[in-house]
């Protein structure tokens, strides 16, 4: 692809960079496309595992412009090369800590320190596991959060999916390609998922749904063997033999490194006014603050807003 560097990089790789973007999902990468095209030197600390939640999906059917759908990982590759095409520097490393009391800001990643005139927090959210005993111990031994990765290990087997949102529907659909039977366990009596996703699941003969049901325990030593369930409608309990359990009950914001540095709400999401945080020069975009929409396209939209707000901020005399 032709390179069109609008943004020059600082001579010293440590910076100061006009903007350091922490995170590399749709929010972070879209922000980088806007900041680089606005000629701001841009460093993306993309994380040891880069690309965000879409890297663990198969076909994404609701991202505008892809009328036939697009593979999540391919979409992320394209966003990344688009940002790099305009001069973004991409490092697949985790930001370990930040110092917001210094100007420019300091960010430590491994044994390196980077300086930033502004920061965009775009660390997104990560899988929430069930609290039930046995679940964490059996991760990789039948318990998973990535059906596209692990579904083939459950060929001809019986698996359960826990959750009621779009990602639970997606996991269940993917699993039907391999498993003999897929049981969706949901604690309410209706799904939060979009009508299209629900339809796909409900008309699939391999999928059964257990409403008003919670997993209270995962059983198995060497591998998952069964789940203890509780029906919240009549308080009855039961045991369901399964070989796999796919957890899709939602996500928690990845904000550990910002605790005590940036204002967070009681659930750990970054508090925001538009794209601004409580620290001047620190901006936020995507699932790390948004718990209402949580879509690839809204994350990208928030990323665009944060990118544009960073460019205005860099114009202000105090940011120089």
């Amino acid at each position, binding site marked *: 692809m032709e390179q069109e560097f609008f943004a020059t990089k600082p001579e010293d790789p440590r910076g100061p960079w006009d903007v350091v973007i922490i995170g590399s999902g749709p929010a972070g990468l879209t922000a980088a496309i806007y900041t680089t095209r606005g000629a701001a030197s841009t460093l993306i600390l993309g994380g040891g595992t880069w690309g965000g939640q879409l*890297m663990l999906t198969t076909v994404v059917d609701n991202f505008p412009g892809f009328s036939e759908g697009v593979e999540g990982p391919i979409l992320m590759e394209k966003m990344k090369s688009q940002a790099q095409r305009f001069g973004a520097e991409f490092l697949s490393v985790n930001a370990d800590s930040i110092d917001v009391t210094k100007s420019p800001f300091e960010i430590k990643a491994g044994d390196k320190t980077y300086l930033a005139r502004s920061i965009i927090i775009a660390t997104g959210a990560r899988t929430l596991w069930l609290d039930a005993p046995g679940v964490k111990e059996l991760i990789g031994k039948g318990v998973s959060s990535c059906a596209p990765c692990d579904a083939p290990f459950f060929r001809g087997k019986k698996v359960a999916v826990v959750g009621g949102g779009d990602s639970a529907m997606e996991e269940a659909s993917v699993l039907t390609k391999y498993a003999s039977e897929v049981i969706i366990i949901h604690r309410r009596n209706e799904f939060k998922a979009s009508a299209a996703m629900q339809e796909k699941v409900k008309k699939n003969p391999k999928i059964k749904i257990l409403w008003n049901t919670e997993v209270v325990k995962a059983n198995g030593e*060497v591998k998952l063997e069964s789940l203890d369930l509780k029906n919240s409608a009549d308080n009855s309990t039961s045991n369901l033999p399964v070989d796999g359990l796919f957890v899709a009950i939602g996500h928690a914001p990845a904000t550990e490194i910002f605790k005590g540095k940036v204002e967070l709400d009681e659930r750990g999401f970054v508090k925001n006014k538009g794209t601004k945080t409580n620290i001047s020069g620190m901006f936020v975009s995507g699932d790390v603050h948004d718990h209402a929409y949580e879509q690839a396209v809204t994350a990208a939209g928030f990323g665009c807003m944060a990118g544009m707000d960073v460019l205005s901020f860099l114009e202000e005399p105090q940011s120089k």
Partner: protein
Amino acid sequence: MASIDITDQDFEAKVLQSKIPVLVDFWAEWCVPCKMAGPVLEELSEAYKDKIQVVKLNVDQNQLTPGSHGIMSIPTTILFKDGKEIGRQVGFSGKEAFEELMKKGVTS
């Protein structure tokens, strides 16, 4: 390329009989986290050259070894020393997690 590809057939010889510890990467073509982990393991295989042998086993073409080692999620990496499993990492959690695992092979 310090890492090598192995199969069900040579698992015994290349892993269990190895004189130095061996890190086995169970992977598949369709697994995105596996593809992200690949270059990281390659880099580490250079860094740990002569200390730890990194090998890759494709779980689509070789189903006996993953089955006998209870692999139900990939990427899974298992460290073997003197024919025994001494550590396991499920999923790709970045370079540090792999390094932690490899250090076990050097120090234990």
